[in-house]
């Protein structure tokens, strides 16, 4: 079986920072796996600004932030990049299986960094009853459809939850000529950053309902309308507070969950020489902080390789 010193799963901001840092700290045989056909991960669809203020002391968009690291990765010949490569299995002995077009490969990694990012929480996880028509999207999926695929997923949207991606998408929908009728947050305050409430919601006069929730989705084939209710301190519906909003799209922006299925597959919570970084370890507000922590993971992996010789 092929053996590699360091295998990194995921070439978003975390995986790229870890790869560069591992090289800088002495690792010389690095394989960086990325399932997409481009490096950069989720940053590529985050075309808005606000990235890099801490790390680069500059205001950058997601693709620009990614580009800085793509150039670093490409400049280091000891980092082998494998695109369109999806990790599908992991064992306790750090034997990783991945598929890429035309091949299945098994690799024994002496050290492994999981930079697999996160998944979006869905409608099912917040239990919105009602019909199950087309037109209910997670905010990040809508972001990908608009910014990468050039497709507008709806014309009149209601956004559930005030996560940063949902707030950013409120503005994006409006700039693309769609309407946003409301942002609805069950908590008393915004889940996303205040700066996003200001520049994405207030700038466009979008009604922002705090302490409210969607109690039902209606629609035969496509979303037609939603019921909205006010909630009390215990997040329970206040009787008589119900009103309806007509819309054809519901965007769900209710948080992220670290993606660690491969580690679950390995069947143990701790594997010597395995490191986790980026959103796969915890959900970050800022990519800058994810980068810094991922650099530590890269350094630790390099030290582990040196000490285990």
């Amino acid at each position, binding site marked *: 079986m092929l053996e590699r010193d360091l295998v990194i799963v995921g070439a978003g901001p975390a995986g790229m920072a870890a790869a560069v840092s591992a090289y800088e700290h002495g690792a010389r045989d690095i394989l960086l796996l990325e399932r997409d056909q481009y490096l950069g991960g989720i940053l590529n669809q985050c075309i808005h600004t606000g990235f890099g203020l801490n790390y680069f002391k500059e205001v950058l968009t997601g693709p620009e932030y990614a580009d800085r690291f793509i150039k670093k990765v490409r400049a280091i010949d000891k980092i082998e990049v494998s695109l369109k490569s999806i990790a599908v299995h992991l064992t306790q002995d750090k034997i990783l299986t991945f598929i890429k077009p035309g091949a299945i490969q098994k690799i024994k990694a002496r050290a492994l960094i999981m930079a697999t990012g996160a998944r979006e929480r869905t409608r099912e996880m917040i239990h919105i009853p009602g019909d199950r028509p087309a037109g209910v999207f997670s905010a990040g999926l809508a972001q990908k459809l608009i910014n990468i695929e050039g497709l507008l997923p709806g014309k009149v949207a209601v956004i559930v939850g005030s996560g940063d991606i949902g707030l950013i998408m409120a503005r994006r929908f409006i700039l693309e000529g769609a309407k946003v009728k409301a942002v609805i947050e069950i908590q008393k305050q915004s889940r996303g950053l205040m*700066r996003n409430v200001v520049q994405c919601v207030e*700038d466009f006069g979008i009604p922002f309902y705090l302490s409210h929730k969607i109690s039902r989705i209606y629609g035969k084939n496509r979303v037609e309308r939603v019921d909205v209710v006010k909630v009390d301190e215990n997040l329970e519906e206040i009787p008589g507070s119900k009103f309806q909003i007509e819309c054809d799209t519901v965007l769900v922006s209710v948080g992220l969950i670290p993606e660690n299925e491969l580690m679950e597959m390995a069947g143990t919570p701790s594997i010597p020489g395995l490191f986790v970084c980026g959103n796969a370890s915890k959900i970050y*507000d800022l990519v800058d902080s994810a980068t810094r922590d991922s650099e530590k993971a890269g350094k630790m992996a390099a030290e582990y390789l040196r000490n285990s010789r």
Partner: protein
Amino acid sequence: MIKNLICIECPKSCALALDIENCRVVKVSGNQCPKGEDYGKAEIENPLRILTATVLCQGLSLKMAPVRTDKPIPKAKIQEAVSEIRKMRIGRVVQSGDILARDFLGLGVNLIATRECG
């Protein structure tokens, strides 16, 4: 008159208090850095935003090229700028930072690509 604003220059989201006399900001407080003062003044006198959007590519491997203004533009010009961007097409290879439209709409800013599109 005192007006309260949230600064959007960085994720700290400082709560600013602006002392306004005759539509001019005479004092900004609550900011943790000089950017807050500039933001507070601009927000009252001429609010500015960096505009980000996408442009349709033709004959390239990417369908959409992300773009932005290299400096902030007046908030009031955003809709006009978006309509203009929607009409644009990119048919050549561009690098991140390449200028797509110089002095965009006469606003004194350039529209630049933010991703390599081959």
